[in-house]
């Protein structure tokens, strides 16, 4: 990074640290914080989408669909989320390969599960074995995103279902009195009004998701946890210009501080959002703001 870093053995004290903290691997470590934020930015809308679908399904008057929606949101209550992560990351991969196998190799005669192996034809591999490394990385990241979205979508479904129930019944009845159909009342009345009721739950969900991001490591992504373990481990002088002892404690201490900052900032932002969304709503907080303004 710096000119003076050319000969690490001659460095001492702070300049040693300055050079140590700007090696290529450390840059990758810093970039992985971006990966965490990117993941959060993607899974929030994705989980909301899954949650919205789940909540709408749970409200459906068509019984099987409603049972499906309710089961989806109920199952995460009973089973640890990390089990879902480990499950989905293999299951999704196998599902994709299975579908591609059925389409691309229709005349394949051998069974796909052979004892302890899962065998699909070469053309159906996901991603193809001859594709470049970034395709593999992106694919792994996308599977992780999908896994997160499915698991936290179930939480979001629960929150949104509760919010939909919380919108006063009179609002829907008024819409019906104006001659709106079921779908119109849902679209024009229920959905715009449910967010203030959903906000505390969604804020909670956001906190849950922030604290779930280190689990990316278990899905095989090179995230902050991966780099902290890798960089913090004991380094021998033979293999690196910057030998040091076991510093994983300090690296994980830094991660701890990073997450504390992230949740602290989130809390402040959520407080502001709650106040912003309460404005003009038919809730106690909204009423209090109206009175304060008047």
């Amino acid at each position, binding site marked *: 990074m710096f000119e003076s870093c050319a000969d690490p053995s001659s460095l001492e004290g702070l300049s040693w640290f300055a050079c140590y903290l700007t090696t290529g691997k450390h840059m990758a470590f810093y970039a992985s914080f971006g990966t965490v934020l990117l993941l959060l930015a993607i899974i929030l809308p994705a989980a909301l989408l899954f949650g919205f679908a789940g909540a709408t399904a749970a409200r459906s008057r068509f019984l099987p669909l409603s049972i499906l929606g309710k089961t989806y949101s109920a199952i995460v209550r009973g*089973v640890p989320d990390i*089990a879902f992560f*480990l499950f989905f990351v*293999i299951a999704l991969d196998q599902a994709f390969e299975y579908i591609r196998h059925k389409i691309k190799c229709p005349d394949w005669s051998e069974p796909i599960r052979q004892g*302890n192996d*899962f065998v699909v034809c070469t053309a159906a591999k996901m991603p193809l074995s001859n594709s470049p490394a970034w395709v593999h990385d992106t694919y792994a990241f996308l599977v992780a995103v999908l896994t997160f979205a499915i698991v936290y979508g179930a939480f979001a479904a629960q929150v949104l279902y509760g919010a939909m129930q919380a919108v006063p019944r009179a609002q829907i009845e008024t819409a019906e009195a104006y001659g709106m159909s079921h779908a119109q009342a849902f679209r024009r009345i229920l959905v715009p009004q449910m967010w203030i009721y959903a906000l505390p739950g969604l804020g909670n969900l956001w*906190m849950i998701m922030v*604290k779930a991001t280190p689990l990316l490591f278990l899905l095989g992504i090179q995230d902050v*946890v991966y780099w902290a373990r890798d960089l913090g481990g004991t380094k021998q002088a033979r293999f690196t210009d910057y030998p040091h002892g076991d510093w994983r404690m300090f690296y994980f201490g830094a991660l701890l501080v990073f997450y*504390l900052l992230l949740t602290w900032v989130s809390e402040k932002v959520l407080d502001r959002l709650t106040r912003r969304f309460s404005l003009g709503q038919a809730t106690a907080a909204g009423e209090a703001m109206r009175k304060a303004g008047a």
Partner: protein
Amino acid sequence: MSCLQTIADYGLRAIGIGERLLPRSDFTLCQQFTLIGSGMIWNIYFGVMALAAGFFLATLLALGKGSRLWITRKPAEWFIFIFRGSPLFIQFFFAYFSFLSLKNSEGLFLIQILFWVLPDAFVTVGLQDAIMGFFRNVVQPAAQPFTAAWLGAGFVLFLNTSAYTGEIFHGALKSIPKGDLEAADAYGLSGWSRFRRITFPTMLRLAWPAYTNEAIFLFHATTLVYFSGFPAWQQRGDALYYAQFFADKTFNPFIPYPILAFYFILLTLAVIGLYGIANRYLNRHLPQEARRRLRIRPNLIR
């Protein structure tokens, strides 16, 4: 090999009793059920220990956070913020590597930093020797058992659940009806007797539904232990450890994970049942209508 034989061999494998070698090929359904079930011993152990010990620290934290004294309020607030604001997964890693550093000579690095920070005038040879001696004779042996999951991970879970429960108890403490406390005053109750007879039982009663959720999710959180640095010595792991073992070996996630889910749903139902009994006991004086039902909802996951 019959299924009964498998249960005899592997039923207590997670705590090191029975067959030493894990199955290597031809994995049967019975083996998967037995080993994952045997791993549940650890999940139950971690959960019960953390909850039992955490209950007391949580009460202290709730009282501390509710206190008007700066000296008790600030530490409680910081403790709760640190453990609720960071992922449990990172807490495990940090704790494990800290214990490891204290146990090994890397801990000396911390002492070097201490000497570096302290003004030179303080750092006499006598002081250095005293600190080094203390480190060698007290800190290192004490840190030794904490690098094992049974104590180290249990300790982290204990602190973590204390923080979450402390926050729940604090909320309940604040929502005790004013009238109840005034009634206590009117009867001449004060200090310890008021706390024991009025404040504490009412706090528990109000907090109980949320505390039930906390217990459920603590049991779920115990599955993180063997994925966060703490080694599974001699392949003695928890239920998820064995489930992942089978999923890796058979490359078929559709059998071990549903088995794990089955066990956890049973455990969740058991927790709900036990906490429900306690809930009925806490609410026994109230008229039927006013009793608070347990509503099971996902709350903060670590």
